């Protein structure tokens, strides 16, 4: 007679098997150089050594890189074709915080991200997760835009702009947005208490309304006025909402307000006069990257100034590469792409990490009240 107890024994056996776990992963150290600690290509024996080590690893894990964002789709496929390395792109819609969370939670797993592309605040707050590395073109990155010990380095950025459907004619100032024809029309790219782009959108409004980088109050009041006029849309602006006509006015980075990114043809962009707020993202390499050589080769590729290198590819995606100044003087810049960037009047300002956090804390207490 069969007894139900056999289920119990089977269950216990399975549980034991599971609990045994596995021995700690043996980190593959390729004979010779340990690329996980190399701080530059030269230190590891030169670019050719890096390339062959990376090819031997054969894979690269990237995270939160949407293909249509700043031309990342082309960048990834160009890299794959050039070096024959498979790129696993996980979590394309992830936020910067999720990228570093993935580094922490996947620590030791072969699926952990090798490199990250994060907002400045997140990069500065998580330097303990990164490995120092200096790309070959390190000296062309402005000093203010990189960490002196090489833990993070800015890569591309843009200016906060207002994109809008051409059915509204031409908009030249933010105060026009308070008019009656913009009912339910104005949207941000996310919630400003968590999304970097949205926070900078409110900050840009603040600059246009007389505030400053240390005072985001006027920006919040502007959105409160929008809400009172019935012009604020609490929906996150996406390609779908724009196409459907639900969010015909969007505050977002200029490279995300391109007609080609947004997906509608009758889309215009303007940056308010003297409210030029710039924001750059930063690259970093995971200290415990499962593929350290491929990670470093990726960075070299991104900062290469070749015609089909990362910097120019970003420019083609409408983003301003960090080495733009140096490339303009040494002539390697793609002038056709550079001329397509929106015109700006006024000096660009950038938020420091402290100002960004202060603004976020102000928003945490005041944003929900302003737009409810």
């Amino acid at each position, binding site marked *: 007679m*069969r007894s139900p107890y056999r289920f119990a024994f089977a269950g216990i056996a399975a549980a034991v098997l599971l609990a045994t776990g596995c021995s700690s992963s043996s980190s593959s150290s390729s004979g010779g150089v340990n690329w996980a600690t190399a701080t530059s290509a030269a230190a590891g024996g030169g670019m050719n050594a890096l390339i062959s080590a990376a090819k031997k690893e054969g894979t690269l894990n990237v995270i939160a890189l949407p293909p249509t964002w700043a031309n990342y789709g082309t960048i990834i496929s160009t890299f794959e074709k050039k070096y024959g390395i498979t790129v696993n792109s996980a979590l*394309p819609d992830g936020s910067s915080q999720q990228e570093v969370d993935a580094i922490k939670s996947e*620590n030791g*797993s*072969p699926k952990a991200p090798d490199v990250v592309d994060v907002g400045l605040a997140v990069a500065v707050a998580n330097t303990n997760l990164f490995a120092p590395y200096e790309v070959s073109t390190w000296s062309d990155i402005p000093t203010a835009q990189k960490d002196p010990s090489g833990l993070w380095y800015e890569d591309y950025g843009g200016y906060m702009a207002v994109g809008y459907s051409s059915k509204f004619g031409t908009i030249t100032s933010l105060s026009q947005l308070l008019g009656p024809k913009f009912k339910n029309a104005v949207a941000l790219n996310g919630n400003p208490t968590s999304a970097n782009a949205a926070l900078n959108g409110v900050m840009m409004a603040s600059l246009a309304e007389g505030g400053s980088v240390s005072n985001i109050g006027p920006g919040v009041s502007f959105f409160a006025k929008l809400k009172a006029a019935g012009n604020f849309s609490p929906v996150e602006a996406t390609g779908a909402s724009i*196409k459907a006509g639900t969010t015909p006015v969007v505050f977002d980075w200029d490279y995300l307000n391109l007609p080609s990114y*947004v*997906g509608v043809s009758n889309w215009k962009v303007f940056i308010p006069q003297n409210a030029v707020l710039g924001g750059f993202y930063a690259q970093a390499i995971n200290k415990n990257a499962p593929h350290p050589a491929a990670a470093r080769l990726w960075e070299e590729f991104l900062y290469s100034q070749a015609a089909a290198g990362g910097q120019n590819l970003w420019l083609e995606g409408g983003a301003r590469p960090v080495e733009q100044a140096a490339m303009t003087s040494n002539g390697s810049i793609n002038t056709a792409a550079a001329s397509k960037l929106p015109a700006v009047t006024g000096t660009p300002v950038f938020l420091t990490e402290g100002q960004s956090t202060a603004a976020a804390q102000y928003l945490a207490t005041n944003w929900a009240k302003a737009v409810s």
Partner: protein
Amino acid sequence: MAAVTSVGETPLAVPARRQVGMQAGRRRRLNLFRYVVFTVFGLFFALPLLAMARFSLEGAKLGTWSLTAWRQIASYTSSEGIPPLISAVEITLELAVITSAVMLVLVVPTMIWIRLRVRWLARAMEFLCLLPLTIPPIVLVVGLGPIYDKIAHLSLSALMLFWVYVILALPYAYRALAAGLSAIDATTLSEAARSLGASWFSVIVRVIVPNMWDAVLNALILTWALVLGEFTVAFFLLYVNLQVELYSISRNTPDAGVIFSTSTASLLFAFVLLLILSYVGRRRRASRG
């Protein structure tokens, strides 16, 4: 003793001549009620789906029609090697089978056993089967990190998602099974079978389960629908399943319609699969006699 039948088994065959009497009147009122209900609810469910489908066929200018969003999906079935979409579909189907098998084997005997022999554990099981729903998936993923790290050493395949999918399906499947189990008198049935010499295994598998087959079928439907539609946990654990792949497809293009063509396609796909699955139940019903 008259055969005991349930609500749904009243024969619907009514002669052409209009019936009179209490039963016929009630039947007419019932049919009217059913038609009204089906129409109203049908409209409520159909409209958003139609809106989605219409949007997926939207051209570059609002108001025009275009198949681009659908062609985008098709383009993912024709690259070299195994196209990512097809392999994602395969993996998800395999996941659905494994998850529902493990779930049924784990939950059904335990529920029946508790009902028959270990009543005091019933509330504990009920609470545990509700717990997965109380923790938002984004937080659950954080807790699952260490376990899935170990699992990633054993296998990198997305099939390893089944361990957590069983947990995710628990609340829904348990509730459907509990409704079915409470509708039959399990204790009497089991005592009758035991007194005829059946083992506990026979009691569970050959006596009680066939009596709650509809509930089992509903639990299967819920589990399959969950696996086919699951996105959040796979996404945050960095695995690729059907929904994650569809999402990547939609992010790969600025054409906003693609996310709707992929959603509509996945809904249709799930619907057809579930329809096929529901025919599995039909043969059993006939054998009930």
